[in-house]
């Protein structure tokens, strides 16, 4: 080694000689390319320039959610209570966002064909992906937590310095939450052989959603139960709730420090370091090989074919609801894709974890009382309404998933073939989703709810929720009027739609109003249900009209 080599050069040179080492120059290049890819639209024929709105609109959505959260807690006088709740929400949303984007960010073999034959080590490839993910998390976490940090700065002793510290702790908390998800998937990638991983990851997604919803959102609420203006008493539970560790750190900074808060703060930092470090190193060396194996064809598909016959037959029965050939084509296309395309399943199945988590919470807390029985004031937390909310929320995932695919360019066939009724293709795809996924899910939920309330009440409650879900699904499809699987998957798209959570509140107003009317006056309630059915019918008609006008002039831009 010549003497002119600096320490960095020498290190770089040695790294280059090692097939395992990370190459920071390559990581920088891949990270920069990743940013370009994230910030640009996939539309054809555009001039190269940063397309800010996609990213900005996503961040604006998160900022609005963060503002609502911060303002709803502004009356809280206790910094620990405030930060516990805001950190819980921020960590949950970060984790859910990473779950939603994980398949396209980290466990994605999409760019394997581009990079696999180049001299890029496994660790470099992995670090570049994780760096991209962490940048993304940093942006969303900042948008989500900045309003709360401002509130903290004004509301509690210590002013701007505390607000700044809150922001730092919030970022660390969100990084830790993201790293936890990465760790979860890394473990799955390590435990399962690559052939099973594709299938297993879908259920890992579902379990992760369930656990996160239960752990980060519902558990703290269960512990509080009362109005959020009061101070949450610290108990032994704080040692098991990560948001409480970070909250302890913030409380320490406003001069309310005791030894317990100090330990909590240290626990927060130490756990974040351990989780992030483990997430970075656990599979980095075998990452490239694992992703490569994911790209190889799996003979298991044919093995499992027979096992799936019954479900396939059930799904195929739904085709009787299709009116014409186009609807049948859309139905069958979506049926095949839902069955075989792991990525598509990956984007839908996590949604089921949300209502299931609320159901579990309802069972534990006793909040799933009879909607038609006498009103109970004991439990202030609206578990039943939250369950309905998440049932409707699932449609958001479906509406987004049925129009997007990484093989979107194959949609040229819809334009080249003499398709008279393009609307039918999407309608058919929607019918498959309703028949194959929504209907069985509501049936399962009916059985589960029958353990918590009289079956008649459960049936009526879920019927109203189901019709509301169908109406919402129609409205969401109107907002996304494309042919099945004809749009590219953009990283920020699904996260942006998280903002629609707020809009789904309208559906909840309907749900509460109808169940309350049914409880108080059966006749009026029945009329309300009939009106809801009429609304659902009208939304379907409106959807067809919207699709007809929108898809008639649609051109293939692939």
């Amino acid at each position, binding site marked *: 080694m010549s003497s002119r080599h600096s320490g960095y050069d020498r290190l770089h040179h040695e790294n280059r000689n090692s*097939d395992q080492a990370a190459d920071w120059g390559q990581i920088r290049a891949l990270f920069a390319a990743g940013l370009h890819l994230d910030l*640009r639209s996939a539309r054809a024929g555009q001039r190269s320039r940063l397309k800010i709105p996609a990213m900005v609109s996503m961040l604006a959505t998160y900022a609005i959610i963060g503002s609502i959260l911060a303002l709803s807690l502004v009356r809280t006088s206790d910094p620990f209570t405030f930060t516990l709740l805001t950190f819980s929400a921020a960590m949950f949303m970060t984790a859910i966002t990473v779950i939603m984007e994980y398949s396209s960010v980290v466990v994605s073999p999409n760019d394997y064909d581009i990079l696999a*034959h180049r001299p*890029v080590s496994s660790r470099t490839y992995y670090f570049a992906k994780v760096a991209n993910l962490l940048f993304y998390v940093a942006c969303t976490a900042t948008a989500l937590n900045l309003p709360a940090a401002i509130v903290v700065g004004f509301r509690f002793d210590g002013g701007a310095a505390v607000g700044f510290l809150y922001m730092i702790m919030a970022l660390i908390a969100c990084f830790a939450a993201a790293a936890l998800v990465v760790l979860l998937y890394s473990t799955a990638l390590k435990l399962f052989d690559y052939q099973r991983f594709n299938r297993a990851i879908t259920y890992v997604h579902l379990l992760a959603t369930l656990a996160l919803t239960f752990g980060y959102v519902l558990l703290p609420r269960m512990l509080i139960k009362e109005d959020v203006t009061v101070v949450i008493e610290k108990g032994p539970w704080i040692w098991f709730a990560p948001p409480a560790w970070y909250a302890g750190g913030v409380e320490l900074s406003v001069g309310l420090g005791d030894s317990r808060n100090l330990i909590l703060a240290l626990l927060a930092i130490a756990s974040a370091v351990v989780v992030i470090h483990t997430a970075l190193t656990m599979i980095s060396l075998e990452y490239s090989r694992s992703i490569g194996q994911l790209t190889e064809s799996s003979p298991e598909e044919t093995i499992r074919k027979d096992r799936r016959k019954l479900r396939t037959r059930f799904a195929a029965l739904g085709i009787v609801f299709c009116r014409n050939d186009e609807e049948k084509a859309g139905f069958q296309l979506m049926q095949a894709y839902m069955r075989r395309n792991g990525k598509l399943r990956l984007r839908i199945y996590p949604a089921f974890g949300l209502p299931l988590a609320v159901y579990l919470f309802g069972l534990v807390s006793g909040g799933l009382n009879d909607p038609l029985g006498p009103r109970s004031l004991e439990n202030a937390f609206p578990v039943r309404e939250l369950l309905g909310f998440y049932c409707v929320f699932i449609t958001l995932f479906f509406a987004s998933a049925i129009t997007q695919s990484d093989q979107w360019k194959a949609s040229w066939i819809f334009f080249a073939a003499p398709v008279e009724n393009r609307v039918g293709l999407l309608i058919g795809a929607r019918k498959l989703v309703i028949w194959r996924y929504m209907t069985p899910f509501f049936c399962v939920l009916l059985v589960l709810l029958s353990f918590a309330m009289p079956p008649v009440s459960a049936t009526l409650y879920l019927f109203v929720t189901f019709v509301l879900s169908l109406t919402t699904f129609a409205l969401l499809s109107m907002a996304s009027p494309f042919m099945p699987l004809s749009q590219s998957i953009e990283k920020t798209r699904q996260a942006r739609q998280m903002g629609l959570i707020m809009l789904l509140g309208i559906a909840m107003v309907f749900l509460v109003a109808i169940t309350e009317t049914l409880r108080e006056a059966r006749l009026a309630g029945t009329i309300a249900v009939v009106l809801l059915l009429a609304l659902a019918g009208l939304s379907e008609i409106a959807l067809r009209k919207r699709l007809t006008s929108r898809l008639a002039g649609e051109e293939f831009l692939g």
Partner: protein
Amino acid sequence: MDTTDGQRSDPTDLDFRTDGQDSVVAIEFRGLAKSFGDIEAVQSLDLKIPRGQICGYLGPNGAGKTTTVKMATGMISPTSGTALINGIDIAGSPLKAKLMVGVVPETGALYENLTPIEYLTLVGRLYHLESDAALEKAEEFLRLFGIADSSERMMTGFSRGMRQKVLISAALLHNPDILFLDEPLAGLDANTALILKELLRELASRGKTVFYCSHILEVVEKVCDRVVILNRGEVVADGDVDELKEMTHRASLEDAFTELTSEDDLGAIVKAFSHSITGRAREAGNEQ
């Protein structure tokens, strides 16, 4: 110089020679095999390709050509056997081996949301080229390929041929010793195809080795020094074009290829297709 199992790891010290030939081996497959479950895509492939040779790698669909390229370039791991690039085991020292290789993949995969310049600069960095040098070369290649005007446009709207030009540029950017080209002419216009064919001959004369997978037999016949034909994962013929013709007693490479890889009567298949498309009933009606 590190030596493992008799394989030299220093790419600059090349003295691997084919049996009885006075030439350096650039690509070597030793018992290379790949299975996907019960399917044996490539079966114990043994092959030595000397430096400066253009080796055509032919075979019907599903014969295992692309799988071979993927194994040779480190994209997938072989089930057994090794692939050596300038004497370096691609599985043992992938980064060293990959530095010497340029690849045009069959999939045509590239980052479409980047511009050609951005993509080529990225590729240059991955091969440790200086930014300015990579940029300069990228611009030159794009100009030579006639797509300089589109160098600042995202590639989402590019035609197949324009993408292929970018892919070929990316494969050549770091001046590799060995090129793996999987259907490199896909989508290229006649003039560009001609340029590429001449370029390959020129590069071969300068000591570059080309592993050329294609279905276009006329091009293989004109460009390649040697032709290896693969069928169902096994090498069924290996030699220059004249040797293959002689071996199969056929007048053209196309006929030789058919003889070696097809057990069916192609004429009968064509007739059956025709029947199926136009309908037997109509044909029966016409006959009446």
